């Protein structure tokens, strides 16, 4: 009896201890969640709201921070001109046309790669995404040589073949600006949608076909409809990027009088004796308001609809057998690759072995550009810094984006909308303006906080700039995962973190991988904020490339661009190998 009493006491004590343990975990959950949310909001406020507040001050003040002046609305009143209406129409028109065209092309390419039996799809997937990773300055240079009206290679070939003296293409035109922007938008949207296509349960399409729908009806009503969160996210991200695009307009638009918002801002900041920050920031906020409307529209479009395609049931990705048509789809992919990669990169590769870009004479053959880059200590320092910032930045951004996306798409926690908006803000401000916001914001921090003039300044700016992409990529993936899988995990005793890691991240990780690569190479290319935040010793590749370019060494820039391309190929190869292995185990 004595021992039984002891045993009973022991059991009660154990249960009490377990209850106490649960109570403390419950307390942790109860109090930890608001604390976590507060921390998340504070972090996002620092990364995105803080520089924006600095810019808002700049738009409402007659002088930039640190100089005595007065508050007024001159910046906003000054943008209401006929000239700016034309600029706005140009900006929206160009971005809209290029986004529609790029979206259509990207969806087609993604479907071909993910859901058809087109030959060589693995290789095609890598090739299609390559243009996104080439610095725009290089493709612009290559296209300026290929498509100028006077002596462009394409026009010379056309005249030689046709015997006419007409011009086939002229990149210095609206069409040229759209085409150059599309080269970045198409692979960007492709990267967004291809894994969503791949992760879709084919049972939905099979049901449609079994119910008598044609292949096209099934694609349009089922496949494409279910892709709406991903495609609208990609559309909006791409449209906004188009509004903020600078390189295409400045290279191919400005010479023929086509001005857009970013070139106008650039003029205000860098082309006047007295930089007009008030006008530049006011114009940026006007553009931001416009883009915010788009986001509201997207929310309305998607509200109350279910886009679940990944459920608890096992499935394997469905492949549409195209028969002979598969060679047509193969041809489409190859044509895209030839036009956007082979032509410009071929030009760059060729040029990198000649003394001068575009002068292919035997006596000008040289390895000097490779040698020069190899022996350039600034390049190697920048390479190390960029790799460090790229890996740390992409990882931190995806971690932050994954958490933000979870909170905004999988919970009903208070404050989630605020988090969503905060994470979006940096995407809606042109990079060159946001860079100034970071500069102002970081410089006035107390000197004890070692951010300004260090790698931290660049890292924080990169995380802020990349977070919108990370959130969109992961939230689109989360939205496709049924909540019952998550609930099932919790019912079986898994904790919140376990469920997040083993269910959500495990299922959405191809999207994580894509997001990581997008952000990593976004960091490699970022210049607007980098040029304002770097300090001696913390140079990054984009800054070194700018120095080479302005210093009259475009051949060396193309060597660096080719190094970046090799890195891309390596990354994408590893990524796709891992994804393939992972998909086969699903």
């Amino acid at each position, binding site marked *: 009896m004595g021992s039984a009493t002891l045993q009973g006491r022991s059991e009660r004590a154990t249960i009490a201890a377990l209850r106490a343990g649960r109570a403390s975990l419950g307390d942790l959950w109860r109090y930890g969640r608001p604390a976590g949310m507060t921390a998340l909001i504070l972090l996002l406020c620092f990364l995105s709201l803080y520089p924006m507040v600095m810019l808002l001050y700049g738009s409402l003040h007659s002088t930039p921070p640190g100089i005595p002046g007065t508050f007024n609305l001159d910046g906003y009143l000054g943008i209401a001109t006929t000239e700016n209406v034309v600029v706005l129409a140009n900006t929206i028109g160009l971005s809209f046309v290029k986004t529609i065209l790029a979206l259509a092309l990207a969806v087609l390419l993604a479907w071909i790669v993910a859901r058809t039996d087109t030959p060589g799809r693995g290789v095609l997937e890598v090739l299609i995404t390559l243009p996104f990773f080439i610095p725009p300055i290089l493709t612009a240079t290559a296209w300026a040589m290929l498509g100028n009206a006077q002596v462009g290679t394409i026009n010379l070939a056309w005249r030689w073949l046709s015997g006419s003296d007409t011009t086939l293409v002229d990149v210095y035109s609206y069409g040229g600006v759209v085409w150059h922007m599309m080269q970045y938008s198409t692979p960007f949207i492709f990267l967004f949608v291809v894994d969503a296509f791949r992760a879709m349960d084919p049972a939905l399409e099979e049901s449609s076909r079994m119910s008598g729908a044609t292949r096209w009806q099934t694609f349009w009503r089922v496949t494409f409809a279910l892709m709406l969160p991903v495609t609208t996210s990609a559309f909006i991200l791409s449209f906004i990027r188009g509004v903020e695009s600078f390189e295409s307009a*400045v290279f191919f638009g400005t010479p023929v009088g086509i001005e857009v918002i970013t070139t106008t801002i650039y003029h205000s900041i860098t082309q006047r*004796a007295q*930089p007009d920050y008030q006008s530049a920031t006011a114009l940026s906020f006007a553009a931001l308001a416009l883009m915010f409307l788009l986001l509201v529209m997207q929310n309305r479009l998607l509200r109350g609809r279910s886009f679940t395609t990944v459920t608890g049931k096992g499935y394997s990705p469905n492949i549409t057998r195209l028969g002979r048509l598969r060679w047509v789809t193969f041809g489409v992919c190859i044509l895209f690759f030839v036009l956007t990669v082979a032509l410009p990169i071929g030009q760059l590769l060729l040029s990198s072995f000649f003394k*001068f870009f575009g*002068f292919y004479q035997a006596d000008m053959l040289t390895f000097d550009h490779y040698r020069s880059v190899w022996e350039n200590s600034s390049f190697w320092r920048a390479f190390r810094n960029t790799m460090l910032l790229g890996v740390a930045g992409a990882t931190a951004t995806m971690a932050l984006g994954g958490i933000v996306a979870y909170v905004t798409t999988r919970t009903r926690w208070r404050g989630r909308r605020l988090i969503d908006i905060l994470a979006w803000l940096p995407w809606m401000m042109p990079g060159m303006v946001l860079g100034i916001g970071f500069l102002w914001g970081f*410089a006035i921090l107390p000197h004890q906080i070692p951010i300004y003039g260090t790698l931290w300044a660049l890292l924080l700016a990169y995380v802020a700039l990349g977070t919108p992409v990370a959130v969109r990529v992961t939230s689109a993936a989360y939205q496709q995962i049924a909540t019952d899988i998550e609930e099932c995990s919790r019912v079986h005793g898994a904790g919140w973190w376990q469920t997040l890691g083993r269910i959500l991240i495990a299922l959405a990780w191809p999207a994580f991988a894509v997001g990581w690569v997008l952000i990593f190479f976004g960091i490699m290319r970022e210049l607007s904020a980098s040029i304002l935040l770097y300090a001696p010793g913390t140079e990054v590749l984009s800054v070194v490339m700018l120095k080479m*370019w*302005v210093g009259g060494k475009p051949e060396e820039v193309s060597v660096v661009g080719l190094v970046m391309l090799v890195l891309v190929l390596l990354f994408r190869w590893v990524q796709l190998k891992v994804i393939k292995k992972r998909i086969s185990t699903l």
Partner: protein
Amino acid sequence: MLRRSVLGLLAAGSVGPAWAQGDDWAKVVDAAKKEGKLVIYTASIGSVFHKAVIKSFEQKYGIAVELLEARASEVRERVRVEQSAGRFLGDVHHNGSTTTWLMNRDGNFQPYGSVPNTKNIIAPFSASNVVIPAEVISYCLMVNRNLVKPADEPKSWKDILDPKWSGKILSDDYRALGGGAVFFVVMYDTFGKEFHEQLAAQKPVFSRDLANSERRVARGEFPLYLPFSLQNYNNLKGLPIKPIVPAEGRPYVRFDLTMLKNAPHPNAARVFMNHYLEPESQLVFANAGYAPVVGGVVEKTLEEIRGLLATKAMGTTTPERQDAMLELAKQIYK
């Protein structure tokens, strides 16, 4: 006797300060070496000649140089923001004379004290107690040799108004800060508004991608480019291009050196400024196509450059009327 004494005093008087100056300067150099470091903010991006002078400075004095390169307006904004936040990180500022003038007006600099080599600066340039002329960018015309026969080459700036050049001129933008704006001001001052009205009728194509513009002309997209910065000639050697300084001369713009306010390494800054004005340093710039600001250098310059630099300096822009001229350019070149 008295006469001899007076002469002796005069001699001592004239030599004395020189001795004292030399002695003081040695102390400045010692102090600079003790500082051991120098931070330069420059708007001269990617210039190998600038780096060559910096390297020779490092080798000569053992002072490590850190270089921050950015575009003129970006350098200006960084300095302004840093100083208003109480961060004094840079020592020497190197930028175009317009931006330097604006920054001087805003109080971003401090007097540098004395720099011995400023005495070698030649007219029309001169140093103030804050600003030291550094080197001069000269602008001329550039033609594609394959497209323009020697007989057709413009001899005067006015020759580009000939209808045969209509639609065939690639140009830096006159409506934006830079070489184009300098060209606009100097032509306006020399030939009046009519020159620009006629040039606008020639429909020049504007591009701000300067390095690429020169190559576009070299590749034959356009036969004529202006204003061509002479210092880029070295980068283009081997291409079918030719720089031409018209009879009236060449517009120019000066780059200046200044000491940033509360510079952490003021002595190193002064020694660097002095080094920059050494004939050997100026010769590096002159051989690259920059006009030197000290005497006795042009004569030693490479022969092919010497002829171009020996031409008349036509004129330059002034910061006070920069905005008004940019506005005028906008009205004429729509």
